[in-house]
């Protein structure tokens, strides 16, 4: 392709009207506690994989709500379950991640 010296950037705007939240809804049906996440970040802060892989359960749930593909992040999870010990809303986060993996399968 000819280089005209400029490029077109894709808009980073999240368009909620076009967001496909089907996976999020399926997750909520199987794991109703997914709805009560308040984005505190405790799970991500304690995550052993986070510093090396970009895994963040907080961002996974948020990404699903915004219709994004969160598989790359999920793949970083080692299922150690540490996050479930710190969630102040008592979400069984490890179980939630396993359920989500099944939804993606």
């Amino acid at each position, binding site marked *: 392709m000819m280089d005209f010296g400029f490029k077109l950037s894709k808009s980073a705007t999240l368009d*909620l*009207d076009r967001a496909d939240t089907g996976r999020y809804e399926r997750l*909520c049906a199987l794991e109703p506690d997914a709805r009560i996440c308040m984005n505190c970040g405790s799970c991500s802060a304690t995550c052993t994989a986070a510093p090396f892989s970009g895994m963040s359960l907080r961002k996974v749930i948020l990404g699903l709500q915004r219709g994004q593909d969160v598989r790359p992040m999920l793949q970083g999870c080692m299922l150690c379950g540490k996050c479930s010990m710190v969630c102040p809303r008592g979400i069984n986060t490890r179980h939630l991640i396993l359920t989500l993996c099944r939804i993606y399968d």
Partner: protein
Amino acid sequence: MKENVVVIGGGVAGMEAARQLLLLGYNPILVEQQDHLGGHVAQWNRLFPDMAPAGDLVRRLWDGITDANIFLETRVTSVNRLKDDYLVMLSNGVSISCRAILIASGFKLFDAARKEEYGYGVYDHVVTNADLESWFNGNESDRIPSAPRSVGFVHCVGSRDLKAGNSQCSKVCCITAVKQAIEMKERFPEARVYCFYMDLRLFGKKYEDFYIRAQQEFGIQFIRGRVSEVGETLDGRLQVKAEDTLSGKPLKVQLDLLVLMAGMSCNPDVAELARMARLDIDSDGFLRSLDNTAGIDVSNRPGIFYAGACTGAKTVPETLGEARSAALDIHRYLQGR
């Protein structure tokens, strides 16, 4: 002969204080500039967190003050200090001599049209929290769509806003937004409901339970980011822009109704009252308490006390509690203790 106490303002603070003063053996004279008592609460539909009808509270308070002197559609025209007494003149020609005055002049709902970016008064389907309560009360409004697909709530409209001259948090709007979001979802189960917030300040008893219910049972989506701009699409829907600060990305969504949580600002009439009675005004425009920890109901003038939102944003239970403590402080003052 029972001793007079002038109570300025007939909202829930003034009503509850008058009720307590009657019980303590005084003759409260309640002065209200509107044609009804109950103030803002009288216009509300249901109160968080128990969803009790606001009208029930106002009626209960009314029942407690049937023996009080009540002047509706009346204003205070002057307050003069004469030795140990105050002489209070009213717009209806009545003058009252009293040793104690309670000011319960409340707040003014922030004028949402001043935040031009939200389009209140420009777009039909942008309404305020008060407009929505009026509709909940059965007042018809063509500004509320009959079958909205999506509804948004904007927290902190004219509160926590230095530029709008109202830097304080209005306290009640977060929980009111959660309450109204639930009420809309109950009426329109198919609608998507979003709350746009900066912080969720759910400090009161049962408030957090309410928030969890909103997420769990009603699927209300909380988006951390202040709405920056509202426009209208060709088909008359609202185009709303905000930053989703948790994702770190700009966000847009189309809505059929946008509800602005207008905050509490100081009652502008209080400036004149403060001038007449030589009361201090605080930096936020509200009346200045002598002590914000242990004497919130005490003014800088002898015998003049405060109750409710004239000193800052308050919830209804806080207001009622302050009205009771002010009545007791007036009692102790008049007893010389």
